[in-house]
């Protein structure tokens, strides 16, 4: 169908999703943006966040961590270092990751220099997004 957009989310390990959709919303570096069919060619970098995919009445949520997205010829390709559909997320693991990241951040603030604060911050972000996507945050 001409008024659909082909969305592909690719990570180093697998093709997370490849389907025709009505609207895809992605967390851009400079703010969230939505892409529909016949969008002008676009190249945007993404931050850690939540992607929403609307197809008819269905909405799929995908947690993406970093990467970028390209839109051309009615096709949207998202390249992310990691991406999971909400059903595929391991909630326990995300919760543990969140706790761990919070602890590390605490330690970093209390003056331990061997901890990379930016990395801990990013890990926390990822965990939070995963939890948000599954609706548990």
């Amino acid at each position: 169908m001409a008024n659909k957009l082909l969305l592909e989310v690719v990570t180093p390990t697998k093709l997370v999703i490849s389907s025709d959709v009505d609207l895809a919303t992605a967390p851009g570096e400079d703010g969230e943006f939505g892409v529909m069919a016949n969008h002008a060619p676009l190249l945007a970098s993404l931050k850690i966040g939540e992607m929403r995919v609307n197809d008819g009445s269905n909405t799929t949520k995908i947690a993406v961590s970093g990467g970028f997205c390209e839109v051309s010829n009615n096709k949207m390709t998202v390249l992310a270092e990691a991406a999971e559909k909400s059903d595929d997320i391991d909630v326990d693991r995300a919760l543990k990751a969140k706790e761990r990241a919070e602890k590390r951040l605490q330690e970093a603030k209390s003056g331990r220099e061997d901890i990379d604060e930016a990395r801990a911050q990013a890990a926390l972000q990822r965990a939070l997004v995963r939890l948000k996507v599954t609706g548990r945050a």
Partner: protein
Amino acid sequence: MPSLKDIKIKIGGIQKTEQITKAMNMVAAAKLRGAQEKMEDFRPYADKFAAVMGELGGSVNPNAFPLMAIRPVKKVLVIAVTADRGLCGAFNANIISASEKYAKSQVSEGKTVSFLCIGKKGYHYLRNTDFEVVDYVTDCMAAIQMQDARKMGQVAINLFLEEKVDQVQLLYGRFINVVTQKPTFKRILPISKEGLGGEEAKGDDEGPKATYIYEPEPERILNQLMPMYVNVQIMAAMLETAASEQAARMTAMDNATRACEDMIHTLTLTYNKARQASITKELMDIVGGAEALKG
């Protein structure tokens, strides 16, 4: 001539070895399939990445990016990717000797060489040489993870940005086909402009090239993508080395199995000859004895 019993024991031992090498061959074949699949899964990502980098790289000024800075090369960093395990023929030895040869030629040109090791075999060898091993990851080739590639990429990028090294070479076992693997060097830093707009970039051209809307500006996107690009290349090298390792092991074990068969064949011949000789000898004794009684 060894006794019949000795030969029999030897044949038994070789048969056991043959069983083991045969099993290892089959395990390697199964793992090779897995490794090849992983390589295939990674390819769309890497291709797309290269295509986008090409798209962006064509339009920017290389001097604006520290990761593209070309300096006179005095210090070279080699990221050597080897297997974690042996028993795969000369596979690891080939990579190691290639790295050493390269390092020595660089040193003779007055440059210094340091190493980053991925994979146990390379690390265990190189740490005992005169070259500095800056950092390493081992036990990572069985389940290849992006985070290992990222860790090494980060180290390499930091060294490069701090101007502690001027060039980064990636050395890995290139998978040409199941019977051929070749240690191959690839320069990953500084990122070259040709590398960006390389042949991978000229992939599926559908219709006329449209001008893209960039968000944020191309420079900022590129600044983010470049480190990731380095990681992607390291990751690709690791996946390829893993596939090569299994292929090399398959061939090595196949050869070993065949060598066992040959040995068993010759030993069986010797065994039969020895047995026949002893029978003949006994017969001669009996016949000789009978003759003597008659006479």
